[in-house]
């Protein structure tokens, strides 16, 4: 993947005035584009693989929301934590998890990020600071507070970014966790990926207040950003991360975005809860990748050839990931009982332990 994070510190020296690209260098901007293109192509590959049965279970795609992943993770340091819900493929890529490892996990292979034990919803890479991949809506929010607590307790110089969907703000866990983060000034950036729908329910139908105002009563400073605009997002996140590192406590962002696909691979893109026209117009007008591409075209910082080359490169990465996953071995039978405390009865019959006891007596 393209290393965009190290470039962020160089921001502010650019000369692309008048185009809204101020503060960013050309290489960095191209890096953003390529990175988001990688996420897009990765998710498309996952979609294809799911369709032919290579990937099973639930599979939630991030297509349309790429700028959230890049904008909130790109400005972080390598040892900062990121924790998220089950729509987690591109956040993992953004935090530096290898595309091969993510794809192999989707394929349920031993070479996957969590050795085939978690699948699409539970990508983890502790070494890269990517703390998963959590399946219960809102449950990762107290976990993020705990990571923040541990950072503070151990006086570490790192922060934690916690993603959640808009539906999570209705969970008790969200309020309990933000409250504790506020009273103990925990170094956590809470990001609501507000794609307007919790599965098939419009947020406005289940909340009297907009997302941004839901944290107001808890004493966590709240912000709003158009998260289809990678540059605006990046700029805000840099600012908030700095505050958190300075010990000011948690921050909260209502990151407005839009999901171009169904809630999961088993859900329709549009239907009873949102119209086809709505989706089409959003795709046309608010694709974070097209928006950045057009700005770069307008500023004459990018040629069509360069874009095509970028696409070839990221497709090669994705294709390789799919090939890697395809060829990766399935976990061995013995893996059923590794990495867990479980009651394996020595006498063989109390619990099925995957071992053939016949003839051992």
């Amino acid at each position: 993947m393209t290393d965009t994070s190290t470039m962020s510190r160089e921001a502010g020296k650019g000369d692309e005035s008048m185009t809204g690209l101020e503060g960013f260098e050309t290489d960095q901007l191209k890096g953003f584009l390529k990175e988001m293109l990688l996420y897009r192509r990765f998710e498309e590959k996952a979609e294809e693989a799911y369709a032919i049965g290579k990937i099973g279970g639930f599979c939630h795609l991030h297509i349309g929301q790429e700028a959230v992943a890049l904008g909130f993770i790109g400005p972080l340091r390598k040892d900062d934590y990121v924790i998220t819900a089950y729509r987690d493929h591109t956040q993992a890529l953004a935090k530096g998890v290898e595309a091969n490892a993510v794809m192999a996990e989707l394929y349920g292979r031993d070479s996957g990020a969590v050795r085939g034990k978690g699948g699409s919803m539970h990508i983890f890479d502790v070494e890269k600071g990517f703390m998963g991949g959590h399946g219960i809506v809102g449950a990762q929010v107290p976990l993020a507070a705990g990571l923040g607590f541990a950072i503070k307790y151990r006086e570490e110089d790192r922060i934690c970014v916690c993603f959640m969907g808009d539906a999570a703000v209705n969970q008790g866990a969200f309020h309990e966790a933000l409250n504790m983060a506020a009273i103990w000034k925990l170094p956590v950036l809470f990001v609501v990926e507000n794609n307007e729908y919790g599965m098939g329910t419009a947020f406005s139908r289940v909340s009297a207040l907009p997302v941004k105002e839901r944290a107001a009563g808890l004493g966590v400073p709240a912000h709003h950003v158009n998260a289809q605009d990678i540059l605006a997002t990046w700029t805000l996140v840099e600012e908030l991360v700095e505050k958190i590192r300075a010990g000011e406590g948690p921050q909260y962002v209502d990151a407005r975005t839009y999901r171009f696909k169904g809630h999961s691979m088993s859900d329709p893109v549009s239907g009873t809860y949102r119209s086809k026209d709505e989706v089409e117009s959003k795709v046309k007008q608010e694709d974070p990748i097209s928006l950045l591409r057009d700005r770069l075209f307008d500023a004459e910082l990018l040629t069509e050839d360069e874009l095509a080359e970028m696409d070839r490169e990221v497709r090669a990465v994705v294709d390789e990931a799919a090939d890697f996953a395809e060829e990766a071995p399935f976990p061995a039978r013995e893996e059923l009982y590794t990495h867990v405390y479980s009651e394996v009865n020595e006498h063989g019959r109390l619990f099925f332990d995957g071992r053939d006891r016949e003839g051992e007596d």
Partner: protein
Amino acid sequence: MATKVHMEALSPTMEEGQIVQWLKGEGDEVSSGEVIAEIETDKATMELVARGDGVLLKILTQEGDTAPVGDVIAVIGSEDEDISDLVGDADGGAAPDDDEESADASKEDDEDPDDDAGEDPDEDADTKEDDASEDDDEDEASIPDPVKDLDRSDADEKKKEAKKEAKKDDGDETRVKASPVARRLAEEEGIDLASLEGSGPGGRIVKADVETAVREGPAEKDEPAKTPDRRAPDEEEYEDVPLSQMRKTIARRLVESIGPVPHFFLTIDVDMGRIVEARARINRQLEKDGLKVSYNDIVLKTTALALSRHPECNAHWGGDHIRRFNRVHLGVAVAIDDGLITPIVRDAERKGLVEIAQEVRELAGRAREKKLKPEEYTGASFSVSNLGMFGIEEFTAVINPPEAGILAVGAMEERAVVVDGEIVVRPRMKITMSCDHRVIDGAMGSAFLQTLKGILEEPLTAFV
């Protein structure tokens, strides 16, 4: 090159989909990513997108029709492309890979096309991995699905259980109620549960009942009714004689023995010349005391001696262990009116010949009167059965489990044999040992018999 449009798995549980509507018709241009049809899955109506650019050449599954996941439902290609091959494939119902098909041709032919159509996309995909696919199938068959696996073993258990029950009940409508531990003990002690009266609720036989029975012998009430010995009237072809408890026990235990105990047999021919002389001398000495030893007593004594030198034969099969005895408790088969019983000469290797002779006579006497206590006929480490007095030359005896061996002693008779190149007449006796192969191997049994033969043929070696 043409692109096949498959019925895709649009939900994790979808097995087939119905075409609600084709949004493109044959001849229409389509591009990759474009929605070409609406599919009704088990969850919702979903959109199917094209995965290639070109013209929708052929629609194979019509609106309202249903196709299993993985089936080719349409073909996209360049305008004048020949797709007859693909369409042919699709008619077969499946979506096999071209190169795979020839290899699998014979297999495909044998199969009902409907079977193919039912294949789920996983399997389809698997056929692409050449040799791996077979392994996968095997893996799948033995996948540790806790539910499935348990079911199977359960069923096996049940079958075994049912068999056991059938054997125990033998069609009897009333099952003997006994606690599990009582059943196990009764089996170990050779006690027929049906002969006991249970002291538990509803007459359940419990551990203590079995222990009492072992101490005191079977309850009186179960003795067969004493009927006058009367011949059946001549006109009857047969007479049904009710089974005594003892006959029942013998039957059960012998069946139990010859069934699960893997017997094998070793026969050895012994020259009894020296023993004949020795016995004559001994009996002359004993005459004044009014005592006498039999050949059988001598066989018992020498057997005990030989066993003490071969503890591997002086053993029990314990299911999960072999118990080797340090003492020789010799079971001596005694024929009695109603059957046979094997009273035990305990610590036989330590007892003198005369002591053994007296004890055997005493035990046999009480055995005929049915006055043996259970501990007098249970717990032998090895047994000897002698039918020599009936003129039986040689025979095989059935092991008395859990003992691992029994000697069958035949009649001693004068036979012509070759000694040092000359035919001479000698007193000879054949001994056949039945061995439980789980405990005693051929060589072990043979070594023991060699020792026994050595002592009988050269009694002085007893002192070596």
